[in-house]
């Protein structure tokens, strides 16, 4: 046995010797890769940045002093060497993210006429997933109307990144056809989990408001999608959505009821006060808390009594929101709140003291607050 082990040890020594040679090679390769990364990549990056620095003043100049689109394109074509077209695209895109109106038209025109749109469309239809997503993103930034049918087709891609980029691009482009594409998608059955779909809709809120209202009234979409639309109705402050949102206060789904209560506060529709006051008695504390908050946001002075009662709600968050809401309802609301300082329950008194004390510190130059 000892002999076998000695034999094995000899084998191990061979293996170790071989491993050392291999590892030295790997080590040298990794180190060389690091040096190359440092030298080549960072130098390349520096070179690209230098080229872009040269192009930036030209583009800025065109944006501020060249109203003629054709002349603008002619200048770019003749002043930027073809070898630098990739960097030119980057500069066009970075500018397109920050300018609007006629300035964006100049960039869009150059982008379209110098072949970038064709290339991106080709990528969206034939590229690999990431390339599709990236090109869709570019087409959106550049508001390329010609790309709409291709972007609509990309909405049926299996990769979520491609779908989101295409949606985003369509919303940015914002032509009726582009918006239709997004509408079809939102109305469809396909699930997309990301709440960033919301940002897409917000980009074109006027166009989407009727669609959102329509779906809220129909109520046939899955709860997850309806929840998103309820959030969006509030986020775009669509007063006309209030009746539909009020209907959701009676939904059997706690989450939809609380979202509706929250969104009603954001819409600014004072006609919702009565309905919100009613749900201060809702079995879900989340719904009651959101309703209390919204009553304050909408300045529902008729709800002062209900809000004062809500300070005795068993859930702290509801008490707190009700107390804060009362501070937003003028002197009458504040008086109703101050009265509660005399109640027996310690937590209720604490909530009122907290809200009034915080108000004092933040709004009135801190009278009564103790200096440490």
């Amino acid at each position, binding site marked *: 046995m000892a002999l076998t082990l000695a034999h094995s*040890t000899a084998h191990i020594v061979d293996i170790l010797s071989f491993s050392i040679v291999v*590892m030295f090679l790997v080590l040298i390769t990794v180190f060389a890769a*690091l040096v190359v990364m440092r030298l080549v990549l960072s130098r390349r990056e520096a070179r690209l940045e230098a080229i872009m620095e040269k192009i930036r003043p030209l583009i800025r100049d065109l944006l501020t002093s060249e109203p003629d689109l054709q002349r603008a394109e002619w200048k770019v074509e003749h002043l930027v060497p073809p070898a630098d077209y990739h960097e030119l695209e980057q500069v066009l895109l970075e500018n397109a993210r920050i300018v609007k109106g006629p300035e964006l038209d100049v960039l869009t025109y150059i982008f379209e006429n110098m072949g970038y749109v064709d290339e991106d469309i080709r990528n969206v239809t034939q590229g690999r997933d990431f390339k599709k997503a990236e090109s869709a993103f570019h087409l959106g930034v550049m508001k390329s109307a010609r790309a709409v049918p291709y972007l609509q087709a990309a909405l049926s891609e299996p990769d979520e990144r491609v779908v989101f980029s295409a949606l985003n691009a369509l919303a940015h482009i914002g032509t009726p056809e582009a918006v239709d594409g997004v509408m079809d998608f939102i109305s469809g059955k396909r699930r997309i989990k990301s709440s960033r779909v919301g940002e897409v809709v917000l980009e074109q809120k006027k166009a989407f408001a009727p669609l959102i209202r329509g779906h809220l009234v129909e109520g046939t979409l899955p709860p997850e999608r309806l929840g998103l639309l309820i959030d969006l109705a509030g986020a775009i402050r669509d007063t006309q959505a209030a009746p539909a949102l009020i209907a959701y206060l009676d939904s059997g789904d706690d989450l939809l009821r609380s979202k509706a209560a929250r969104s009603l506060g954001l819409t600014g529709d004072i006609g919702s006060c009565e309905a919100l006051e009613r749900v201060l008695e809702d079995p879900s504390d989340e719904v009651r808390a959101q309703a209390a908050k919204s009553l304050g946001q909408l300045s529902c002075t008729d709800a002062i009594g209900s809000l004062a009662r809500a300070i005795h709600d068993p859930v702290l968050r509801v008490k707190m929101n009700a107390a804060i809401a009362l501070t937003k309802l003028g002197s009458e609301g504040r008086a109703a709140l101050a009265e509660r300082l005399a109640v027996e329950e310690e937590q209720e008194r604490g909530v009122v003291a907290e809200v009034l004390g*915080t108000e004092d*510190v933040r709004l009135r130059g801190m009278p009564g*607050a103790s200096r*440490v």
Partner: protein
Amino acid sequence: MMTANDWWGVVIITVNFLVFGYFVVVNTTYLGLFIAAFVSAGRYVARKRLVNLDELFRSPLTPKVSVIIPAYNESSGIVESVRAALMLKYPRFEVIAVNDGSRDSTIAELVRGYDLRQVTKVVERPVPCADIVGVYISTVHDNLIVIDKQHGGKADTLNAGINVSTGDIIVTVDADSLIEPDALLKIARPFLEKPGETVAVGGVVRVLNGCTVASGNVTDVRLPHGFWANVQIIEYLRAFLGARMGWSTMNALLVVPGAFGAFDRRSLIEVGGYLRDTVGEDMELIMRMHQYFRKNKREYHIWFIPDPVCWTQVPVKMQQVASQRDRWQRGMIESLRAHETMIFNPAYGPVGMLSMPFYFFFEMLGPVVEILGYAVIVLAQVFGFLGLRFLWLFLSVAVLYGIIVSLLGIALEGVALQHFPRLSSLAKMTFFALLDNLGYRQVNTWWRTKAYVTYYTRRSKWGDMERASYQGEPGKEPTT
């Protein structure tokens, strides 16, 4: 017939083979994790190009964030830490600084720095924490709350912050750390992209020592002077960046760093917040989250993303490094023992079958096996069972393999953070990658082995660490 001496030889050589096999498996697993990390970093960087952070900033749907800064005896840097947090770029956030009964002037510095006033506050305790003795708000910053509480340890302090918070996402930041201005937007992204599913996100922690800080921002990234800080830079890249990114791709991440992590508040409360009687609260929490969500068959993901960067001061004195490593090791032992039923339990998927066994056998028991390995090799050499050649070859392979993994950590930083070090820095880092494996690793292994003794003698002690102000003092290390 074999003599007693032969038998000893058989035993020692067999142990040598086992140690050798163990070492090959550990480093090969690290290598595998690095491959996964490189793929993941490449994808992440590519995806980043499709995200416009300004859109997230403008969106009314971006969730509210509560940044919790626990502070214990942090008077030298707390005002700047809070200032850096208040300057973060994010549409809706609050900063909650929690003073954990400091013995120094932490609370007084905050009161002076932000014109704080004490207010009444009713605090519910969905997660347990020690008594809160005072709540302060600022007359100059609407979104700053300062909590003064009885001393209860870091986990207890974080729990107090969670109880007071009103955000949908909780971000924890160490008081001696700085986070980059757009880090909140970046770390909140997974919560927006996978709402409901994302329960925690860890960000990269980088070493602040040596960097220049101005107005709460890192303006120049440089390597520090001195052995301890430099060697920890390599350790952070090798063990934290590489390994964590690798585990994250399999949803088997076991640590979201306490220095910079984001959590879905509801999920955090649902699992009971931080466990208070542990020194490894960050690791224990993540294991508990895996256990809870897997047990309840909930769809969830815990991410590690490379670019929301947090900068932290690392200890620069040997005793402090030793104390910190001792605490980390004890935290790991506590966490793994508390959740040992998950190890090799297929019900917990890759966490139970891969990352927990890896941490148990290689991270927790690793130091003991390594020390045993060194001892047995020396014994084998002394008693003539193995030749000197074997000894040198074995140590050379061990060190070379380790250096390769350390260099891969440096390369990963280049890919993930797109930060290419200067050639002089690269040479310096390579030199410290060598020292990391030839010297530091052995010392660290000794500290971690000693932690077993500490574990049984003083379980929940943290140990102190001197803090330097971010502005630093002339001629003093660190220059942060």
